């Protein structure tokens, strides 16, 4: 074989090895289509926001798809929103429950491979149900239909669909009065260096849950204005959520004003503003020296007169 042909062959082998290596290194987080998983489910809808009427039943479907190649038995059950399942920054007493008003068309069923099961969920709020938000989780856990070896530990999945419901009419003018921004930090007015983060809480004393969508504008004397659209969060009745964000301005601005507007729907917003100075030590020292010199000058002038 000529030298040229040998070099070409080596190059082809090298490139092939590189390609194979790259495939193995970068394919780590991709679910290979030939991988057989033991439990794989899709639930739709995973979050529901219902408007209920006292005394009037309401039925909605939940779709459970079995995405695996094995038939799967499913056990469905209804439970309240456990305190443990609430987000860490959600401070709320246990929310009112829909559980006692809810029935499922079936609690145990088998879904064939790649099949879909439609579960009917009926909520029957009593006539005397008061205006409030009500909440529950509908959980689906597979049960293993074949006899399992007693020498193995079992791994199970449990998928919960959340149900948020409201009995009563929303009045956004009232909501604005019942939503408060609190603890909008920084609380101090003068800093030597810019604060590391800004934080605030939004509390909801309205009778049902709301979605809070905060918008923050920070302006300063010398730095550019910055606008941030922050993450939306649901706030349950009598609950509070906390936002914390890194301070967004890198440039020195001396005087800063932060305006927070929290949208709660229908164009209504709750706003609050805070301000603070950032006076680095050098600036403070310079101001002190200047004042000292000025005082001396004034004193000397008075003596001369």
């Amino acid at each position, binding site marked *: 074989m000529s030298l040229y042909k040998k070099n070409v062959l080596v190059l082809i082998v090298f490139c092939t090895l590189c390609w194979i290596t790259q495939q193995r290194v970068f394919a780590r*987080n*991709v*679910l290979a289509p030939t*991988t057989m*998983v*033991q*439990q*794989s*489910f*899709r*639930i*739709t*809808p*995973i*979050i529901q926001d219902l408007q209920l009427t006292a005394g009037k039943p309401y039925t909605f479907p939940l779709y459970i798809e079995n*995405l*695996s190649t094995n038939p799967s038995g499913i056990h469905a059950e209804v439970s309240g929103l*456990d305190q*443990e*399942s609430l*987000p*860490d920054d959600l401070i709320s007493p246990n929310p009112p429950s829909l559980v006692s008003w809810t029935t499922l068309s079936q609690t145990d069923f088998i879904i064939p491979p790649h099949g879909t099961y439609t579960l009917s969920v009926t909520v029957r709020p009593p006539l005397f149900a008061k205006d409030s938000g009500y909440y529950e*989780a509908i*959980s689906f*856990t*597979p049960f*293993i239909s074949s006899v*399992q*070896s*007693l*020498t*193995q*530990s*079992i*791994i*199970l*999945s*449990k*998928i*919960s669909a*959340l149900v948020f419901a409201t009995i009563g009419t929303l009045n956004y003018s009232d909501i604005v009065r019942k939503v408060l921004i609190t603890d909008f930090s920084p609380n101090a007015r003068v800093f030597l260096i810019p604060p590391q983060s800004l934080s605030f809480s939004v509390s909801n004393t309205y009778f049902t849950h709301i*979605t809070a*969508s905060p*918008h923050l504008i920070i302006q300063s004397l010398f730095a550019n204005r910055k606008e941030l659209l922050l*993450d*939306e*969060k*649901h706030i349950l009745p009598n609950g509070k959520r906390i936002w914390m964000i890194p301070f967004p301005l890198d440039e020195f601005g001396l005087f800063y004003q932060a305006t927070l*507007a929290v*949208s709660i*729907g*229908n*164009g209504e*917003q709750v706003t609050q503003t805070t301000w603070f100075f950032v006076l680095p030590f050098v600036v403070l020292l310079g101001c002190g020296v200047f004042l000292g010199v000025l005082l001396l000058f004034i004193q000397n002038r008075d003596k001369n007169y």
Partner: protein
Amino acid sequence: MTVIMSRFLLCIFVQLLFVFFIPTAFAALPSSTNYKIQSYSFGGGGTRNSTSTNYSLFGISGDITGKTSSTTYTARNGLNYMLQVNVPTAPTVSNPGTTYDRLKLVINTSSNPTDATYAVSISSDNFVSDIRFVKSDNTVGSTLAISDYRTYTNWGAASGVFVTTLKPNTTYYFKVKARQGKYAESNYGPVASVATSNPTLTFALSSSTLTFQTPTAGNNYTDSSESTTVTTSTNAYNGYSVYAHETQSLTAPGGKTIADYTSPNSAPTTWSGTGFGYTTNDTNLTGSGGVNRFASATKYAGFTQAQFGDIVADDTGPVQSSPISNEQFTISYRVTVTGATQAGTYTNTIIYAIAAAY
């Protein structure tokens, strides 16, 4: 006194003379041999007209469609025409993240000047009975206010904005109108539509059983080779959280147990001693103790037996431009015993619970 009184009365008489008897000098109505303007008044903010037998002048203040016309002659809009704004073409609407409560909207300016402002109307039934408006905070409201008219820049320019507070699995229709200055406003342009999706969550476990190697002196009575990979896809705006708990400690028939590793989820530690525990490779985990408290799957915690469990994997979103698709995290197990541990088959059940975050 008599002289003063008489002069005072004379002044009053002269003033009365000017008020009642000397006519005010006004300019005569403009006229020529054949024509005369009958009236100077005209509609101020409303509709007025001046007419003669053959000619009429109609005008509506503030309206760009006013015209002058008679049976024979018509005067078209003159300067008024220049104040019109172009009717915007249909906006570009899409659902890039297959989201269920928001849609992306991009205004098309149709060559309107940069100071033109735009208002957007939205409907779920193509404006038959449901007619609402996109508000200045991108939520949907029932009334249109001046503040809801925004410039192209404030509508997000080419990136657009996400219109929120929408219902899932619903087709929404959008149309846009433009305004410039105080008196020029176009009609609504053509309608564009797109649908929200349903909120879904897909969850898969890589295995449904767990079998450790038999602990011997040869493997230092330790096995850390087992793991479970959780794979999640969702379009839930705030993502998802996966919690894990066990139904009991590793227990053999007869009641003997292997204790859980003592470090909690909020303070995992480098492995030390004996027990059964886990670690996770999620380096951005919410909850107490810091986001990377498991130090890239090098520190361990023991399973809790509390109902919902401890958080072991999550992705808090937000999901707007693209859904979470086939995201994987691996939870690895470790069991270490001593040579004095009673022989037997120790089993338990581990449950991974997942819910959309809100």
